[in-house]
């Protein structure tokens, strides 16, 4: 196993180095995605299946699609530009700063090696196991996310929603997206794969209560399915009514979460303090709405702006030139 760790670490370091220093931007993006893949292997090695699932769905799938689509929006010449602008990247100042940071990093490494090796880390695994029964779920990670520290998760969904608001406030994007489909194969395959995506997404969502999975990986798979539909050219014309519906879906996760918390407060418990007999069902409700909402939010973030449903001719949905 030690050799395995060594190779894994070496590969990770090489990939980071490649990603940050290879001139070709496609090479950098692919190295970055490979880094994500190997990080998932590292999570498996460190016995963190929940994180491995999230990394599999978000780290490699979504981020890769995001980066490739961004590269496509930039002209080709930009993807091969030199690593550092003229005038920097050489000279004593550069090497002084870099040398300083590397020396600081080495000191940090030495400190960590010597302190953490001796540190006793009892962790909270024991107390968590004792109280797991009253959380309403069997998977400890879900118990932490949606019961013991549900406020953090609430804030996280708020952050996602805020990100969508930021993206939408930057302006409209083409809708439906302009593109040429290289082959009729793609829509056919996507039509076949979409049910599988939905099945996996909802099974991940459902099993979050008793096994690794839950709202984040489920939502991410849902978003990936939507991205695949967009990429294969299957878009829908969004009407004004559809837009308001979309806004509700986007905010559903946060709304249900806050409503649950407030109504628990009104019923005499604390904010998001679940009574033991309802805990399981409440968590399921919150998780389901959060999962669908996270999927929609990640998809909205991929689209990168508010879908443009303004004046398009009925027969000829011309997209607005950018």
């Amino acid at each position, binding site marked *: 196993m*030690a050799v395995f760790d060594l190779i894994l*670490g070496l590969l*990770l*370091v090489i990939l*980071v*180095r490649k*990603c*940050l220093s290879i001139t070709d931007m496609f090479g950098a*993006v692919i190295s*970055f995605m490979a880094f*994500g893949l190997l*990080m998932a292997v*590292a999570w498996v090695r*460190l016995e*963190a299946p*929940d*994180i491995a699932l999230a990394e599999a769905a978000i780290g490699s799938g979504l*981020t890769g699609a*995001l*980066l490739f689509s*961004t590269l496509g*929006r*930039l002209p080709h010449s*930009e993807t091969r530009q030199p*690593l*550092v*602008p003229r005038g920097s990247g050489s000279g004593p100042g*550069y090497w002084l700063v870099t040398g300083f*940071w*590397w020396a600081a*990093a080495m000191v*940090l*490494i030495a400190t*960590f090696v010597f302190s*953490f090796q001796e540190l006793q*880390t*009892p*962790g*909270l*695994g*024991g107390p*968590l196991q004792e109280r797991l029964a009253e959380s309403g779920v069997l998977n400890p*990670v879900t118990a*932490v*996310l949606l019961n013991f*520290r549900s406020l*953090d*998760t609430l804030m996280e969904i708020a952050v*996602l929603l805020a*990100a*969508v608001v*930021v*993206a939408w406030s*930057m302006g409209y994007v083409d809708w439906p997206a302009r593109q040429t489909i290289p082959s009729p194969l793609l829509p056919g395959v996507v039509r076949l794969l979409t049910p599988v995506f939905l099945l996996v997404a909802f099974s991940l969502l459902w099993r979050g209560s008793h096994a690794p999975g839950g709202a984040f990986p489920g939502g991410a798979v849902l978003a990936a399915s939507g991205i695949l539909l967009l990429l294969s050219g299957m878009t829908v014309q969004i009407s004004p009514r559809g837009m308001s519906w979309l806004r509700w879906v986007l905010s559903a996760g946060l709304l249900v979460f806050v409503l649950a918390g407030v109504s628990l407060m009104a019923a005499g418990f604390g904010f998001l303090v679940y009574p033991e007999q309802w805990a399981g069902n409440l968590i399921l409700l919150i998780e389901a709405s959060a999962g669908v909402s996270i999927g929609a*939010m*990640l998809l909205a*973030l*991929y689209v*990168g702006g508010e879908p443009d449903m303004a004046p398009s001719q009925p027969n000829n949905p011309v997209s607005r030139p*950018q």
Partner: protein
Amino acid sequence: MTGYYLILAVVILAMAFHGLMVRANLLRKLMALNIFTSAVFLFLVTLARMAEPLDPIPHAMVLTGIVVTVSTTAVGLALLVRLYRRSGSLTLDSSNDD
């Protein structure tokens, strides 16, 4: 074994920080930022693995962190595309300013 992963996390952290500071291209800076967060997560999860029994609380924190990272990246990329359309450059080099 866990000590090894701690060192690995710090090495990756330092490399990513170096990239974040030195590279001018904003797309590369965003990737460096992503790697940086991955290194932090690796550190946390390794600490969780060292605890006895396994500590799931850092796992939950990291899960939250991954989602926040992806939303940050998406917003950063959207900003980047806008910046490019506005200024024709992917860097924040002051000589390129309008």
